[in-house]
């Protein structure tokens, strides 16, 4: 059997296992709480594996390995801020989210400020961030399947959309959690095997690939590149978006509503940090191993962004079987992330927009569940259509754009809701709408969309859009301040609920 055929068999086998897990999870699904947040029953280690699964995705595995192989230290920026981003989550939002939240991000914010406009805006922000993230996964998986398996792009994207919908409809958050745990475990094992084989080439020295690359190509592969003011500002903007954006990602927020108690929320964050920190450090090693074993020109030729460096390394050091294993696992991992995003976005539509904004909360749980399942299918279909239209676009930048949008809309509103006593509904609404418009607007007039005729010089707008969102929050709070209807639930009460002693 050829490496390509074996890859397809492995990918199909892994997908079949995830479908079985979804069917198994569907038997445990009894209520809306089960569907949205796995009934709030998960243990710390279960949520840790699922949280880690959100981060150790196909995107990070392929993207960071390739970026390090092609650009050296510049690729490291994609990984450097992640452990710190999770420490911020642990310090600032993990426990308050679990204590205040019900089903969605909007529930946490609206625990303090009731209001249909605000809830609707948070739901729209959730949808925008989730759909952007879903499009990246669809496009990435479609291109990888096309390049690795020789399967046409459109059927792959549609097939992934159908399977994602199946997960959401069948098993909700319980299925998503099982699938994330399974996928994280498989990916960790495969990467561990790949790194052991790669290190065997350099005498099992963990930094051997870096030292070898330096011997072959000189210091330039290890030291930071200096490419002018705009590129430097881009690096800072990327790091700012990354470190602040994570705590505003709806599918990450949702993970803290699934745990049984505050200790489980803390434990899951801490354990997940350990898992993906080690994983990302290993990716640096794999990036340099790919540069040494495959070569810069061959990586560039296979894909200009370097996205196939990891499978190429697998083939170079482990032969066709290792290549097949890595390629198959990559496709399966995409599905798990898509399932998380589908749950977050279907909750925003069914629970926030339909139940709370349109029906004023007067919807039976069964009806809400039906709407959620339909919404999951519709959101997946929208993302599939955009992904098909965007097949020839460079979407690698989109994941960082999603972080920047979250850092400029949901994150500031969430943090100010939890920590600023004078914050009010006007400030929350202004920051959410203003941050969303500024961040999306700057991306639309930036170099990734307009190319050479761009109006705004940075691809990732966080450096401008995050301060803008904070200014909107201050202005909205000042304008709305004196009106009693803007105050919401007294801050002292929110603080006691968020940080019960």
């Amino acid at each position, binding site marked *: 059997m050829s490496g390509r055929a074996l890859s397809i068999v492995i990918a199909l086998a892994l997908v079949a296992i995830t479908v079985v897990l979804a069917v198994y999870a569907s038997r445990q699904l009894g209520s809306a709480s089960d569907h949205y947040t796995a009934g709030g029953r998960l243990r710390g280690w279960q949520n840790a594996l699922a949280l880690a699964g959100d981060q150790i995705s196909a995107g990070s595995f392929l993207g960071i390995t390739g970026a390090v192989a092609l650009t050296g230290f510049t690729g490291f920026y994609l990984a450097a801020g992640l452990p710190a981003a999770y420490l911020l989550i642990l310090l600032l939002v993990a426990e308050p989210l679990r204590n205040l939240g019900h089903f969605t991000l909007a529930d946490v914010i609206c625990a303090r400020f009731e209001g249909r406009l605000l809830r609707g805006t948070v739901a729209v922000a959730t949808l925008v961030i989730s759909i952007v993230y879903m499009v990246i996964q669809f496009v990435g998986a479609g291109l990888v399947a096309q390049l690795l398996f020789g399967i046409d792009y459109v059927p792959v994207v549609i097939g992934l959309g159908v399977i994602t919908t199946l997960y959401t409809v069948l098993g909700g958050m319980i299925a998503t959690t099982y699938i994330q745990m399974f996928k994280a475990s498989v990916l960790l094992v495969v990467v561990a095997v790949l790194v052991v084989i790669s290190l065997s080439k350099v005498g099992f020295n963990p930094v051997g690939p870096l030292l070898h690359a330096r011997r072959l190509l000189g210091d330039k592969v290890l030291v930071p590149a200096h490419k002018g003011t705009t590129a430097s500002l881009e690096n800072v903007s990327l790091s700012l978006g990354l470190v602040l954006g994570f705590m505003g990602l709806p599918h990450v927020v949702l993970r803290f509503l699934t745990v049984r108690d505050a200790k489980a929320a803390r434990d899951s964050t801490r354990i997940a940090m350990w898992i993906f920190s080690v994983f990302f450090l290993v990716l640096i090693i794999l990036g340099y191993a790919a540069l040494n074993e495959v070569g810069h020109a061959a990586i560039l030729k296979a894909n200009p962004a370097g996205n196939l460096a990891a499978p190429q390394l697998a083939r170079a050091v482990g032969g066709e079987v290792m290549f097949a294993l890595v390629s198959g696992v990559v496709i399966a991992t995409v599905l798990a992330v898509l399932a998380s995003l589908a749950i977050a976005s279907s909750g925003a539509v069914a629970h926030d927009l339909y139940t709370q904004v349109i029906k004023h909360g007067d919807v039976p749980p069964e009806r809400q569940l039906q709407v959620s399942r339909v919404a999951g299918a519709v959101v997946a279909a929208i993302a599939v259509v955009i992904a098909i239209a965007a097949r020839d676009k460079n979407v690698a930048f989109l994941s960082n754009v999603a972080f920047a949008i979250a850092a400029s809309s949901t994150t500031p509103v969430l943090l100010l809701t939890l*920590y600023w006593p004078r914050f009010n509904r006007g400030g929350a609404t202004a920051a959410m709408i203003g941050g969303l418009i500024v961040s999306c607007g700057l991306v639309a007039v930036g170099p990734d969309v307009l190319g050479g005729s761009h109006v705004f010089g940075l691809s990732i707008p966080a450096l401008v859009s995050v301060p803008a969102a904070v200014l909107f929050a201050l202005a909205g709070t000042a304008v709305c301040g004196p009106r009693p209807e803007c105050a919401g639930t007294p801050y002292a009460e929110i*603080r006691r609920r968020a940080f019960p002693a």
Partner: protein
Amino acid sequence: MAKLYAGMEREHTQATDAAAARRIRVALISAAALVVVVLALPILTSFTHVLDGVVGGISVAYIVGFAEFVVAMAGAVIWCRWVERQAARRDPADGRAGASERPVADRGRSAR
């Protein structure tokens, strides 16, 4: 007797509020310091040459970057231990599970 209970309740609320305020203060100061540390890496590597050297075959920038990983992971362990110590101090009968640590179902969340 009612006055005594009211006094105890007030005292408990004040102690609870003070504990929450201390925790918020520590969390916000730590978070601010962390953001500064994280942004220092791209600022120093992009705008200056201070991290351009190579030590033992590895660039200084990578060593600082790896150190950030270690700081974040150590910070997570220290924070969790500190919070658990605070919880144990407040609820000595069951140091592992204070009011904030109780299972969700016990706190009426299932009724939502």
